[in-house]
């Protein structure tokens, strides 16, 4: 918002835009150039989640999505079953759903976006380096 006002009053030159665009494009470039890294990350991600719930490893989708000013990691990890309920109230996850889109312990999405719970298993904001004061 302040950003917008700044831009409106011409206080912020185009170099800020350049910086922002570069930051984003380089993140995507780096991801594109490191497919093995993504594979490893996917594997490790699934390993961690598998410690708690049983997932369908064959149907995992991990994608990167460029949003307005951020890059988001979107993972769709179908859950086959939830293991030991541990006595506690299990989170709102229905076990045995073929393609479970369980609403989850969502890692607080800050950006005020109201996406349907569809496709949101895990979302990581990757806001590298100094973002400007805003």
């Amino acid at each position, binding site marked *: 918002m302040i950003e917008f006002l700044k831009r409106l009053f011409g206080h912020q030159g185009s*170099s800020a835009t*350049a910086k922002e665009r*570069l*930051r984003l494009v380089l993140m995507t*470039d*780096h991801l594109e*150039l490191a497919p093995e890294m993504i594979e490893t990350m996917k594997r490790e991600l699934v390993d961690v989640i598998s410690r708690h719930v049983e997932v369908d490893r064959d149907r995992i989708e991990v994608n990167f999505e460029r949003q307005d000013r951020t890059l988001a990691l979107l993972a769709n990890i179908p859950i086959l079953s939830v293991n030991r309920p541990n006595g506690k109230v299990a989170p709102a996850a229905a076990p045995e759903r073929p393609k479970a889109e369980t609403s989850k312990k969502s890692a607080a999405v800050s950006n005020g976006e109201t996406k349907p719970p569809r496709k949101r298993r895990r979302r990581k904001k990757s806001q590298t380096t100094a973002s400007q004061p805003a």
Partner: protein
Amino acid sequence: MHQVESVQPEPAAEVAPAKLGRAIVLTSGKGGVGKTTTTANLGTALARRGSRVALIDADVGLRNLDIVLGLESRVTHHLLDVLEDRVTVDDALIGDKHTENLFLLAAAQSREKDDVETAKMQALVAALRERFDYVLIDCPAGIELGFRNAVAGADEAIVICTPEVSAVRDVDRVVGLLGNRFRPQLVINRLRPQLVKKGKMLSVEDVNAILRLPLLGVIADEPEIIVTTNRGEPLALRKENATGAAYHAIAARLAGEDVPPPMPPAVKPTLLERIGSLVGRRRS
């Protein structure tokens, strides 16, 4: 009594005999950012410090380093003549007309980059390193075989970047391709301090917040560069010119001299700003 053991561990790349010169490739990925101009000026500055310098124009098919140095009429043999054993390297090296101890090995104009054999290029650079303190290799734009050949014989890299999104992105890519072996250092070229101040151009800090490389120097976008290039006289011949001096600062830093860290060229405060600073108002 000579010292037998080195006191501190040396990086693997420097195990070679102590006398060997440094082979440095000047590269950028993107074309038109000033690789050739920087090579000519840095070579001039290094030679004027008393080093023996060989410049190799590796831009086969698009020979340009000769004309920037004003040596175009003296080229009789070129890089491929040497690589293909038609002439010796001494036959092909052209002595600079302004600076002692500065030599040019011109690119072949009528051939293609793919005609260069990587192994031969490596051997040539290795041979030159035995005779020169510095071998500067002017790399062609792009990241194809021409780039790989230019880089093959080098053991260090200087990456040239202008404060533009496209140049920064390409340098990022090139640095990724170079890997750790070349310990790339950054020269930011064509900086326009006035525009930076107005927030209309990426600053040195902006560029290097992204690239994160050791900063070797900053060169302003200086009209005199155009004039001197027109004449075939590198600006580094004129130390009294701020940009000429900036090349000498790069040379000194490269030689390991402890010169002050590279600063973007100064901008005179405008009248309004001077009034502003008197009043104590903060402007950014």
